């Protein structure tokens, strides 16, 4: 099947798909990082 070729549209679909997945991972990752970062803040307030 040598007649298969990739178009710019294919490229954009592929990269935008990757970007959307990364953005979702970013949202979750930042949320997790924030929870890690502030995990002990409450302890400070109790004292």
């Amino acid at each position, binding site marked *: 099947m040598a007649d298969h070729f990739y178009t710019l549209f294919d*490229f954009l679909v592929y990269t935008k798909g990757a*970007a959307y*997945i990364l953005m979702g991972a970013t949202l979750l990752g*930042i949320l997790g*990082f924030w929870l890690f970062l502030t995990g002990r803040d409450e302890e400070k307030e109790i004292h």
Partner: protein
Amino acid sequence: MATENSAGSKSLFTPFNVVAAIILLVGVALTFLRFTKGLGAVTHLSDNNPWGIWIGFDLLCGVALAAGGYTTSAACYVFGLKRYHSAVRPAILTAFLGYSLVVVALLYDVGRPWRLPYPFFVQSGTTSVLFEVGLCVMLYLNTLFVEWLPACFEWLGFQKPRDFIVKITLALTILGVILSTMHQSSLGALYLLAPSKLHPLWYSMYLPVFFFVSSIAAGLSMVIFEGTLSHHYLHDRMDAAYKREHDDVVLGFAKGAAMVLALYFMIKVIGIGIDNKWNYLLSGYGAWFLVELLGFVALPAFLYAIAVREKNLKLAKWTAVLTVLGIILNRFNTSLVAFNWQLAPADRYFPSWMEIAISVYLITLGLLVFRFVATRMPIFHEDPRYRQHVPHEGEEEAGPEFTEHKLHRHPQTFGH
């Protein structure tokens, strides 16, 4: 540094002063050479590499590391985090000196320095990114100058003009944030003009975003770094409020920097993904890119988070150093290492010792001016006549070592 100054009677021949004097002498000689014999006499710049370390280090790093001015004043006056108030003046002074030195460095770098004001008066060039950078830097330098003036006026005893500037602090801060947002990002946008010269891993349509976001982390880390050095060398110039708030500033800014670095890491990865440049990561440049991204972005973000969780001031301070080095590395990579990456090694740029010496000379000049100002003007302490802090219950008016500036406190307060 401060000991000999405050004592007044001690010798001027301290190791710091002697080294600074030697650097200044060499710098003056090289300055004479630069302005009499031209750029070719002191630099390795060429048509292939017209921008060297005076742009890559003095300008790009100088502007990024001076971002502490707008981040600190925005935190205090725009976001209302008054507990960071004591960090504002040192940050403003650092930023003002940083931007001043950026302009001085430009005078060395521009072939015909007397034409530096041309973009503003001879032609507008409004479609040029460089014009926008120049205009913003010029306006922001003036803004920083005005923001710094209250400390100068308090020192000189000019109360009325000082009170007027304090009243417009919020407006100045907003103007500073707007101008910084514009030119910090535009410095990255400059490199959008060279897609064929900059390595694909560093080239991205999001370069302006990368430069702006990383400048916030640089500014926050620089405030921690500068505060730590000042705490060590200018301790006797600090009042009780500054000393009390210092730890809070370090941990608070560490928390902010951790989040910004985490976000910066994520958008850098998205930048790779959206241009589908994963394959470059397997090359030598890819390894170097990963060193920058993992070692100087992800690692400091994690270390900052640990420092904040454990309330570990020492770790936060060392992480600030790592972050500052990371920002310098990123600007070096963008402007020098990954720039003209396809050229033969013989055509690549490496700075001459004289270029490096002039950069060191300018940094030394900045340090000396900082010391001169900080040991005389109310930068790390508040003049009791213009006290803005509401004293805490049982708080001393000044620290035990802070005896030279114990003036009678007036009951009225000014400003915020």
